[in-house]
């Protein structure tokens, strides 16, 4: 479903991604973990080309995005992203946040977009907030809306970049619950997070990154209980 092959990315002189290879099969859940500045965001953002690698191939759903730019728009609809800072549209209501892209990008009718939008809002427990504005919601609620917004594109892939890192501790669980529920639906997921409970429960693989490289790929049990890589051991001893 997702293949990153030999990805290199520079910001100026800063070699941020060093020969990254990643393969995510359909329906797999992958959790990416690693110290701050290790390139996790840059890597996940390469998948939907918010960052363009300097070399290598990005193949999503069979399409090589480095070669065919024309299909980028289609892939961005298939691979929906949830951001650390939520990035809801503040000038739109919650429901409008969910429907604007389906209507304008996917050409859905307003009725259809609203109907499925309300269904997803119900799924994340926020149907009663449909007419509220994002600023009127708590951080946890905003992030759940952001997930519903992503789902209303009917994506095949969900990309999460530290979705709970900007949240107060008491709000993390409500977001993780939604994500676990989503994981059980069979969608393909790539998730940058340090929530170990989440990783243990849903991840097929945990990927450990440091200094722009993937240093270890393992099952969550193997990774958390018995990490092989020295940097991973150090890192886990700090966050545990």
């Amino acid at each position: 479903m997702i293949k990153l092959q030999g990805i290199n990315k520079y910001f100026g002189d800063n070699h941020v991604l060093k020969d990254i290879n990643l393969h995510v099969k359909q329906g797999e859940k992958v959790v990416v973990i690693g110290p701050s500045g290790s390139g996790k965001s840059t890597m996940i953002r390469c998948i939907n080309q918010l960052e363009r690698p300097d070399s290598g191939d990005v193949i999503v759903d069979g399409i090589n995005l480095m070669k065919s730019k024309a299909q980028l728009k289609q892939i961005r609809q298939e691979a929906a992203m949830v951001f650390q800072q939520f990035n809801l549209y503040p000038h739109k209501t919650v429901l409008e946040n969910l429907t604007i892209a389906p209507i304008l990008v996917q050409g859905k009718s307003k009725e259809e977009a609203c109907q499925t939008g309300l269904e997803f809002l119900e799924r994340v427990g926020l149907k009663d907030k449909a007419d509220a504005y994002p600023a009127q919601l708590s951080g946890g609620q905003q992030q759940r809306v952001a997930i519903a917004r992503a789902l209303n594109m009917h994506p095949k892939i969900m990309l999460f970049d530290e979705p709970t890192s900007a949240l107060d501790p008491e709000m993390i669980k409500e977001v993780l619950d939604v994500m676990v529920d989503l994981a059980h639906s069979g969608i393909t997921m790539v998730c940058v997070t340090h929530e170990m409970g989440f990783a243990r429960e849903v991840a097929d693989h945990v990927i450990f990154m440091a200094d722009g490289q993937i240093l270890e790929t393992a099952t969550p049990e193997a990774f958390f209980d018995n990490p092989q890589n020295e940097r991973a051991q150090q890192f886990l001893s700090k966050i545990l």
Partner: protein
Amino acid sequence: MDVNNPFALYKWQALFDARDIFIGGLITTLEVTIGALVLSILLGIIFGIAGVFPNKIIRVINRIYVEFFQNTPLVIQVIFIYNALPHLHIMLPVLLIGILGVGLYTGAYMAEVVRGGIMAVPKGQLEAAVSQGFSYWQAMWYIVLPQAKKVMLPAMANQTINLVKNTSVLAMIAGGDLMYQADSWSGSNMYYGPAYFVSGCCYWIICFALSKYINKLEKKAGV
């Protein structure tokens, strides 16, 4: 004694008799204002977006436009256009030259307003929209610009008021605007007092009404 009083009654009488000239000038001023405002907002949006565009060459074009028109006097720009166009065998009515000159000049300021407004919107907004499959222009139009509006409106209002006053540059090229009519009418009869007083009042009324109207818009936009 009366002759030395710049505001002598008979001079007001003369002004009143010549009111059609001044009304004509006022209409020309309003026409140039509206034309130049439309042009400057269009240029402002185009060059403002150019100022934050991913492509560096386009950002450089924004800088050249803005720095050129902001840093040379409007009077010179307008006189230059007025004198240069005939050499290129382009004959424009003086009204259009006024719209072009004032519009280009104000457009540079509008571009900075638009650029500042866009930059005040968090980068994540454009990214979220683009990640949903919006094109760059769709994201700008539906997501970024509506949010930038809040920052842009008050600054655009100031530019609009400056624009109204700046249309008086047309007097320099016999533009037939209010300032020109006041100049030429009082230049022939020396009744400067009422001529400039009344013209000044007209500019003040237009600008004041505009700023009130814009205050109302701002309130509506929740600034």
